[in-house]
C-alpha cells in the first residue's frame, strides 16, 4: 500500500503531499565528514529509535531495486550516490520514510495521498519526536535546526505537493508560474526533483525558505499558493472542455485506446498518454478506470520499479513490453461515455 494507491482531497490534480525534516545529531560531524564508524553509529541510533520500521540498506541492494525506491519517492537520488552504510527506514504502510546518511544524518519524510500537507507535517513531527529521544539534535537558538546545507537551516522543513497540471502546461503557463512562485519563496520542479523534466505533466511544488518562518506557516502558505494554482488549472480545464469538447474527448479517449492496445511503450510516451487519460477521467471524458490505478501506473511503470517487480535484470526492450502489458491491463477498463448527437 503506497500513497499512490489512495485518492485524497483534490485527488484529480494533487497526487500527494509531502513533509520532509532535515535533522542532525549534535554528537557527530555531518555526512561527508564522518568516519565509517560514525556513519554506522548514526545508522544504529536511527534503527534503534525506529525499531518497528523496516530497514533497507541502499548501499548493498541492486541498483535497480534502489532506483525503484527513488521512483516511488521513498528516497532521494542523492542517497544512492554515496558509499558507506546508508539506507532508509520505512514504516509499514510506507507513508513514512527516514533516510539515514543522505546530506544530513536523518531526513524524515511523510507522504500522504492528495492535498494534505498539514497531515504530512504532523506525521513527520511525530517521528521527529521519537528520534530526538535517541540523541540530542544539533540545534541553535538563533539558527534553529543545524543542517549541512544552509538552505535547510531553521525548521529544516520542506513541505510540498505533487500536482498534475496538463492544462497549465499546454497553455505554456509553467514558466510564468515558476517566476511568480519563486518570488513567494516556493519552487516548482519536475517529477523527480531538481533539474528533472516534468514527465506526464506532473510537478512538485515546495517551499524554498526554511528559516524565520514557523512550520505551520510554511504549510499554510503552501496551501494558499497551491490552492490558487488548482483553481487556475480547474478553470482552464472547464474552459477548454466548453470550447473544444470533441477535441478534449478525442485526445483522452485516443490515449486510452493506445494504452489499451500498445505492445511496446517507452516511458516518455506512456507518461504522456497517462497524463491524457488522467485528465479524461477527471473531466468525465473517460470512465471505468479508478484514478488510484492510474496513479499506481504512473509510478510503477518506471524502469526501476519494473525491474524490481520482475525480479531480474531485463533489457530495455523488455521493459517497454512490460510497461505496455501493465498499461493495457488498466487501460482496457476504460469506458467511453455516450455522446449525444
Amino acid at each position: 500500500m503506497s500513497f499512490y494507491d489512495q485518492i485524497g482531497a483534490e485527488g484529480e490534480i494533487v497526487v500527494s503531499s509531502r513533509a520532509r525534516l532535515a535533522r542532525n545529531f549534535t554528537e557527530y560531524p555531518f555526512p561527508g565528514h564522518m568516519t565509517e564508524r560514525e556513519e554506522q553509529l548514526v545508522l544504529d541510533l536511527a534503527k534503534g529509535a525506529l525499531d518497528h520500521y523496516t530497514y533497507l540498506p541502499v548501499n548493498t541492494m541492486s541498483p535497480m531495486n534502489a532506483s525503484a525506491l527513488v521512483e516511488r519517492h521513498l528516497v532521494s537520488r542523492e542517497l544512492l550516490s554515496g558509499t558507506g552504510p546508508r539506507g532508509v527506514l520505512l514504516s509499514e504502510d510506507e507513508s513514512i520514510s527516514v533516510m539515514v546518511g543522505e546530506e544530513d544524518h536523518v531526513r524524515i519524510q511523510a507522504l500522504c495521498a492528495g492535498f494534505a500537507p498539514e497531515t504530512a507535517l504532523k506525521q513527520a513531527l511525530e517521528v521527529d519526536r521519537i528520534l530526538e529521544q535517541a540523541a540530542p539534535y544539533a540545534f541553535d537558538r538563533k539558527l534553529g535546526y543545524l543542517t549541512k546545507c544552509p538552505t535547510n537551516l531553521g525548521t529544516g522543513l520542506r513541505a510540498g505537493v505533487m500536482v498534475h497540471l496538463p492544462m497549465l502546461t499546454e497553455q505554456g503557463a509553467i514558466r510564468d508560474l515558476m517566476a511568480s512562485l519563486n518570488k513567494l519563496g516556493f519552487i516548482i520542479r519536475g517529477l523527480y526533483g531538481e533539474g528533472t523534466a516534468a514527465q506526464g505533466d506532473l510537478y512538485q511544488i515546495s517551499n524554498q525558505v526554511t528559516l524565520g518562518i514557523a512550520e505551520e506557516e510554511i504549510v499554510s502558505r503552501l496551501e494558499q499558493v497551491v490552492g490558487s494554482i488548482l483553481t487556475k488549472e480547474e478553470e482552464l480545464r472547464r474552459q477548454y472542455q466548453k470550447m473544444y469538447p470533441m477535441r478534449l474527448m478525442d485526445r483522452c479517449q485516443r490515449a486510452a485506446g493506445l494504452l489499451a492496445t500498445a505492445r511496446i511503450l517507452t516511458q516518455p510516451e506512456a507518461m504522456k498518454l497517462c497524463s491524457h487519460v488522467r485528465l479524461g477521467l477527471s473531466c468525465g471524458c473517460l470512465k471505468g478506470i479508478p484514478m488510484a490505478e492510474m496513479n499506481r501506473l504512473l509510478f510503477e511503470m518506471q524502469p526501476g520499479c519494473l525491474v524490481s517487480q520482475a525480479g531480474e535484470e531485463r533489457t530495455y526492450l523488455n521493459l517497454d513490453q512490460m510497461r505496455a502489458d501493465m498499461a493495457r491491463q488498466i487501460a482496457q477498463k476504460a469506458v467511453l461515455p455516450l455522446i449525444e448527437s
Partner: protein
Amino acid sequence: MKCQHCGNNEAEYQYTITVGNHQIERYLCSVCAKQLGYKTGNADLSFDQLFSDFLNTKVQKQASEVVCPRCGSTWAEIQGSGKVGCAECYQTFSDRLLPYVQKIHGTVVHVGRAPQAETVARKAEGILSRLQAQLDAAVEEQNYEQAAIYRDEIRALKGGMEQ
C-alpha cells in the same frame, strides 16, 4: 589513495591545514581541489614533489587559515561546496556564514519548533530569571527571610538544570 572529498577520483594533491594546534593533511583530486578553492599548481605534481618543494610553501601559506576545530573544514571548502562540515562550523565561520544565510532566507532568526530538551531549558531559564528578580527585590526590601527562600529555589532549579 582516493580523494578525501569525493571519494571517487585518485588524490593528486596534498594540502596541510592547521586545526588549533594540530596540522591535518588532506588528499584531494584536482577536481575537488579546484572546487574547494585550493590552488592546484602544476597538474603533474606528484606527492614526492609536493613533499619536497611545493608543500613547504603551501603549508606556510595555509597555516594562518581558519579551520573548524571539530571537523577540519576550511572556509574555502565551505564556499566551494556551499555546505558546512559540522554543527560547529556555524560558530567557527559565523561572521562569513551569517551574511550568506541572510541572503538565502532573508533573516537569521529561527521561528518555529525546537527540540523538547531546548523547550524545557528555555522554560527553566524563564523561571530562573523571574526568581532572580524576586530575590533582588527581596534583598532590596531587606526581607532576608524571603530572599533565602528564593535563593534555595534558584539553587534547586540550577542543580536540576545541570543534571
